[in-house]
């Protein structure tokens, strides 16, 4: 609380009070509906915010000179929260992987069924782990690259904590059976509205920080972060358009129906991959990789071309999720063409990252943090190639609905997204807590090899099982009927499901090691460093004014 000014404390108190009042209203009016549980969660959060604010209401005012230093507390909190989400959601992911091996492991409970736990995993890793990592690193990167402090102390906390409230509402909702049945957009209408409010605050905060910059040029990482924030807002609002059954019911119906609904969903779904899982993390890569390698990005100009390529091509690729459906043929072809074209800016980005390492490969060998980022760039190149390939209609005929898709997603999510996050966290943590290095470089090595072997085992298992599945589903016998029943193909998956769950377990163990290393770094971080060392270019340094 000591960071917030008097006005910001009042604003926090008001926000808490509004949240409490709204939560209570939801809880009482929707009694008996799952919405009341979420009302209670809103209310409890509001009460917690009020309690914390009131306790610190009369704490000393923040330093007058605060604009001469960066505001990193929200980034620090975001890193720890992201790692906790990561461990939790990867655990759930491995749990559902074992559930496929031992399907009876549900304790006859609805919440423990595959259908409810799977979105807990996907939301937890994408939004809980990935989203918090993006928020934390974007705050860190935008301040450093613009050489300015975040404009205020309230909105970063509102964004970070409000976003986590959304994640908790989403995940708890799935276990209660609340879903609007849209993949990666499962949360119901009220959670969607809350996320819009949080996200608009995020966008405004980012724009205000850019407006305060002391660096004339907006560094490319910020472009990617901004594309991520802006486009995710657009996608989320359009795909989330729905009419609730009543103001106090968790259930809603989509504004779209039939093939339009499917197209809107996969326009959203694929652009979630593009702008949530790619653009934001490219922003991360364009800052932390050159910093860690100690070399500027190989070609800044190519990074600009790839930026516009990625933002404008991805928008049209979503229909490749709907090959051989009721979607008009030309729309399918459009999606396929743009998916293939996407290989150009994607590989330009991957090559740009790897060429940046030319002359720094000795560091890649000795520095596991940089190796995380280098490997992430390689996996980015691999999975974007695979994605373009799978979007080709006849290839999709083999791959669609099989485990190959799951393998592809995890090549991207584990190999690219998670590895770049771990690399960025290992680079940012010592800087944020002002210590020389991570608690244990050896544990970073352990984490690296666990993550790499886990990813490889996972992806190879799914390639095998996916292609076998696809072939079994399309093999005909001499009589012209299918040679295998569906159950035959399920039984054939058994060894691969065990391998996949084992690979996932290794990856999870790596994340646990990472969390431990980060926590120990924080605990042992010397508190001897002076605050005076860490300041942006602020008005205070220009006495001539």
């Amino acid at each position: 609380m000591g960071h917030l000014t008097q006005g910001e404390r009042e604003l926090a108190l008001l926000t808490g009070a509004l949240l409490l009042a709204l939560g209570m209203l939801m809880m009482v009016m929707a009694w008996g509906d799952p919405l009341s549980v979420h009302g209670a969660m809103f209310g409890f959060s509001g009460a917690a915010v009020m309690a914390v604010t009131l306790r610190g209401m009369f704490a000393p005012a923040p330093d007058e000179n605060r604009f001469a230093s960066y505001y990193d507390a929200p980034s620090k909190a975001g890193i720890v929260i992201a790692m906790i989400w990561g461990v939790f959601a990867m655990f759930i992911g491995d749990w559902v992987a074992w559930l496929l091996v031992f399907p009876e492991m549900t304790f006859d409970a609805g919440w423990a069924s595959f259908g409810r736990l799977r979105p807990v995993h996907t939301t937890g890793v994408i939004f809980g782990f990935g989203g918090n990592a993006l928020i934390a690193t974007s705050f860190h990167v935008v301040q450093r690259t613009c050489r300015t402090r975040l404009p205020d102390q309230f909105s970063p906390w509102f964004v970070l904590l409000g976003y986590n409230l959304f994640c908790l509402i989403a995940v708890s909702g799935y276990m209660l059976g609340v879903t609007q049945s849209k993949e990666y957009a499962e949360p119901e209408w009220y959670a969607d509205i809350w996320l819009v409010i949080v996200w608009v605050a995020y966008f405004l905060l980012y724009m205000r920080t850019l407006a305060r910059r002391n660096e004339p040029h907006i560094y490319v990482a910020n472009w990617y972060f901004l594309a991520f924030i802006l486009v995710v807002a657009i996608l989320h609002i359009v795909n989330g358009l729905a009419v609730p059954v009543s103001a106090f019911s968790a259930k809603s119906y989509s504004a779209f129906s039939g093939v339009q609904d499917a197209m809107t969903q996969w326009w959203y779904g694929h652009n979630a991959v593009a702008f949530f899982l790619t653009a934001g993390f490219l922003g991360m890569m364009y800052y932390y990789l050159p910093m860690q390698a100690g070399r500027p990005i190989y070609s800044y100009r190519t990074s600009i071309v790839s930026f516009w390529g990625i933002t404008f091509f991805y928008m049209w690729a979503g229909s490749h999720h709907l090959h051989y459906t009721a979607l008009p043929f030309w729309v399918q072809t459009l999606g396929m063409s743009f998916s293939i074209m996407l290989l150009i800016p994607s590989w330009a980005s991957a090559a740009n990252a790897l060429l940046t390492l030319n002359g720094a490969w000795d560091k890649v060998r000795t520095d596991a943090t940089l190796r995380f980022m280098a490997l992430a760039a390689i996996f980015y190149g691999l999975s974007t190639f695979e994605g373009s390939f799978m979007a080709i209609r006849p290839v999709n005929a083999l791959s669609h609905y099989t485990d190959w898709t799951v393998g592809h997603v995890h090549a991207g999510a584990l190999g690219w997204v998670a590895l770049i996050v771990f690399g960025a966290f290992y680079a940012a943590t010592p800087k944020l807590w002002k210590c020389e290095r991570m608690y244990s470089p050896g544990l970073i090595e352990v984490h690296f090899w666990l993550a790499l072997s886990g990813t490889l085992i996972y992806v190879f298992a799914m390639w095998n099982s996916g292609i076998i599945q696809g072939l079994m589903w399309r093999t005909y016998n001499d009589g012209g009927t299918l040679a295998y029943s569906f159950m035959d193909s399920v039984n054939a998956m058994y060894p691969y499901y065990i391998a996949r769950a084992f690979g996932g377990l290794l990856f999870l163990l790596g994340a646990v090691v990472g969390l431990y290393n980060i926590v120990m770094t924080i605990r042992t971080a010397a508190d001897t460093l002076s605050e005076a060392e860490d300041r942006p270019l602020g008005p205070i340094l220009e006495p001539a004014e």
Partner: protein
Amino acid sequence: MEFTHETLVAFSKTFGLFYLIALSIGVLIYAYRPKNKERFERAATSIFGNEDRPCR
């Protein structure tokens, strides 16, 4: 004019094509224009100042 599926198809097959090509050319010119070379080189190295302290 009646707004039909065909109208939309015609629109995306003409305007969609041209604006994307124009955008691509525009971006390429902007990025590779010799005049901008120095500016982008400076931008690429701008992140390296002491990141804990103000500098330019």
